[in-house]
């Protein structure tokens, strides 16, 4: 059951719970190789409640998310930036 390789699409629920918006369409730039990837394309090992997302280019860890009963740990140290699509300002 461990080592199930998924992709960022499968993180949609866990991430939306934290961010309150859909983060799978955001672009994460890898801190290892600098390649930007749509979060949905990150390679993810699970299952929830512990998810590790790696860069599809260099396999470095970009994002880690662990959900506990009353908190979530989000480790974004492997991402230089997270670029989120936003609705245009009114």
């Amino acid at each position, binding site marked *: 059951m461990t080592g199930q390789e998924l992709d960022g699409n499968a993180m949609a629920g866990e991430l939306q719970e934290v961010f309150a918006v859909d983060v*799978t369409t955001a672009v994460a730039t890898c801190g290892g190789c600098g390649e930007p990837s749509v979060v949905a394309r990150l390679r993810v090992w699970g299952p929830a409640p512990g998810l590790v997302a790696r860069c599809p280019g260099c396999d470095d860890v970009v994002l880690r998310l662990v959900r506990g009963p009353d908190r979530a740990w989000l480790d974004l140290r492997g991402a230089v930036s997270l670029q989120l699509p936003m609705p245009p300002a009114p």
Partner: protein
Amino acid sequence: MTNRRLVWRAATVESARTESPTARTLVLRVPQWPGHLPGQHVDVRLTAPDGYSAQRSYSIASAWNDTGVVELTVQRVEEGEVSTYLTDGLEVGQPLELRGPVGGWFVWRNEPPPVLLVAGGSGIVPLMAMIRARGDVRGRQPFRLVYSARTPQDVLYATELARRVRDDPGLDVTFVYTRKTPEGWPTPPGRLTVATLNTHGWPPDFAPDVFVCGPTSFVETAADILVALGHDPKKIRTERFGGTS
């Protein structure tokens, strides 16, 4: 539709259908379901009496329409603690916790370009939601599905696909069998090839929207072939599952 606080909802299994010897569709009645787009997912949570819980992400198989139900097709994974319960244990009338819809990337939004769908095994599920949604709105975008399955018995939605090829104008379906073909099939069993996607996909010049879903190795092979054939990587959306357990 995707920007809202997520809540766990208590769904009820309204009915169930056997799709193959190892796959089952659950028809779920979900109170206050906000609707969904084809390709979106739900998270399913099972909780044991002792409090142990397990959670998985599943693609929605149905298009959202006024029947008000959400369908999930679950492929049994040997020793998968969630999938085996959903395929073999859960009975009609029983509750199931789910939340969603989630995911806004692997989604078809009824846009103008032609569409190529490439399915490996139960990767057909979110692509079927797209085919159904197009059928519901009588979409005119040409759709082509290339569907790789181990054997004819493993093909999900076979009857409905045959009916839709007949009734939904502009839908073409091509099967690839990797282990066993139907009687009289013109080619021996084998993996998806460049020739198959070249012949049964769209030329890159048509700039199709491409959706590929299946096991990791299948998705990587299909995406590599499509890029080699000249498709823009940005137009290829992929979804991989490790055999959701």
